[in-house]
């Protein structure tokens, strides 16, 4: 394992310190328990939007703290859910007397820890649960689907509503709506190495890919030989389109997300290939996002996320945002 680090134990802390120092105009990092807030206090009456999850998916979530998006982020250890004390401390710090909305990805660990935080904290809270990964068969008997890259879209859109005065209930409803209208699926060309583990989470042969991989390197639908990009694209989008029941002339946001180790050139090539697939089906890409936003350490791979758009979602997508990793209109 080759990583820029001094010791496995200090890895996260030093990284957070660097993040805090590099973006002190936007955010402040707090330690023990760890959480990241905007550098300005929450306006009174504004719903506080707090997200969190295991580290290793940067810039998610810390990179999305700032005007128009999150009020705070709670980073757990690499690939491990944050603990309730982090969420409790964060929600106390960014409380604007209008309640807290937690954005939680659908993993047992995240759910239980956020639930405990909700029970133990003093203020009122609601939770939006993200479960956009269409690679996993859904079923009411099981944990259901994983939450992956659509989290970024939910955080942007709900963040915008909260910034413009949405109530806790309205934010919760909008978040659920974005999640319901989003689907994602990805493929990995390589594993990633959790610093504490020191060796790759899984192994892929020199010509293999993991189809439908999770953002922690969880195995996907199947292992397969690497295919041409256009075929990978067709298949991934096919599953998403079916799941979302996308119709002719529907308007969508297309998000091509890199897992961390795939160059931008390849992500844009995937965007091109996806556009061809979608053009063929008369589906209109009216908003786009391409880049490494919801990563899995240094994993090589990419995922597609599609969100069905309407006027409301477009408005909140376009509104100004000023965070370390996403910025426009300001």
């Amino acid at each position, binding site marked *: 394992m080759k990583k820029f680090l001094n010791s496995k134990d200090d890895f996260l802390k030093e990284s957070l310190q660097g993040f805090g120092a590099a973006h002190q105009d936007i955010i402040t990092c707090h330690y023990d328990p760890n959480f990241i807030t905007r550098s300005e206090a929450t306006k009174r009456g504004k719903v506080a939007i707090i997200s969190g999850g295991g580290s290793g998916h940067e810039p998610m979530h810390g990179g999305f703290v700032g005007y128009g998006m999150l009020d705070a982020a709670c980073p757990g250890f690499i690939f491990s859910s944050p603990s309730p004390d982090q969420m409790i401390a964060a929600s106390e710090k960014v409380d604007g007397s209008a309640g807290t909305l937690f954005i939680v990805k659908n993993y*047992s660990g995240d759910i239980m820890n956020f639930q*405990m935080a909700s029970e133990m904290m003093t203020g009122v809270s609601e939770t939006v649960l993200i479960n956009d990964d269409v690679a*996993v068969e859904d079923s009411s008997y099981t944990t259901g689907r994983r939450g992956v890259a659509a989290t970024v879209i939910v955080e942007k859109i709900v963040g915008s509503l909260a910034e413009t005065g949405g109530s806790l209930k309205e934010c919760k409803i909008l978040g659920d709506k974005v999640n319901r209208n989003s689907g994602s699926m990805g493929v990995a060309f390589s594993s990633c190495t959790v610093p504490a583990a020191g060796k790759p989470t899984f192994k892929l042969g020199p010509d293999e890919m993991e189809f439908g991989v999770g953002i922690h390197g969880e*195995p996907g639908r199947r292992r397969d030989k690497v295919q041409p990009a256009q075929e990978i694209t067709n298949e991934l989008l096919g599953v998403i389109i079916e799941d979302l029941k996308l119709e002719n002339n529907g308007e969508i946001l297309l998000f091509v997300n890199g897992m961390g180790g795939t160059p931008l050139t390849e992500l844009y090539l995937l965007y091109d290939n996806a556009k061809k697939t979608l053009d063929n089906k008369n589906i209109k890409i009216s908003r786009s996002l391409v880049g490494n936003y919801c990563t899995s350490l240094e994993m090589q791979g990419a995922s597609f996320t599609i969100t069905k758009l309407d006027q409301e979602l477009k408005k909140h997508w376009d509104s100004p945002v000023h965070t370390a990793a996403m910025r426009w209109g300001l």
Partner: protein
Amino acid sequence: MGTDFLIKNAKEIQVVIDNNASEIEKLDQEIGDGDHIFNVQRGIKLVIESEPIIKHLSMSKALNQIAMKILSGIGGSSGALFGTLFMTMSKVSNIDDGVDYKKAINMFVDGVEAVKQRGKADVGEKTMMDVLIPVANCLKQGIEKNKDLKDLMREAIEEAEKGMLSTKDLLATKGRASFLGERSKGHIDPGARSSQLMIRSVCMSILNT
């Protein structure tokens, strides 16, 4: 049974877990995200490090302190679950008046019930519940039937091992392994393995006193 019992067992558990670290690591890599061993090791370390504080606390406060260390130190699913176990035990009434084995078992049984609520998983879903629930049931029946403590410990060790092994052929329907569907079969659940090892460690320590 005092707080020294808690610390002594934490130290013994640390040894057992460290000795089986690479196996547990592998299990969570196979059907999870590979962090379970580090989560657990980190949690135990934090608990042991707080010995100077814990040893002067009452039983309820000591257990609560351990619960908080576990919650924040372990993180992830097992942090919430093990944390819930200890937090619930800390809240059982009258434990500061002294804890005998009977009371300790009742505390554990209450704790497991809370863990079951927290994770919404039952026996047969390929999680640590496949160890915790059978062990809790066995202990509960044991004290109802006034069984010999040492016999009961041996039974609990067996139940834990059986439960742990049973997870191998199960289809996971809760936790991260559930994302794998059919592919989860054929692997022992990491949380079941770590729970079983911890239970065995505590039971053995009681057997050896």
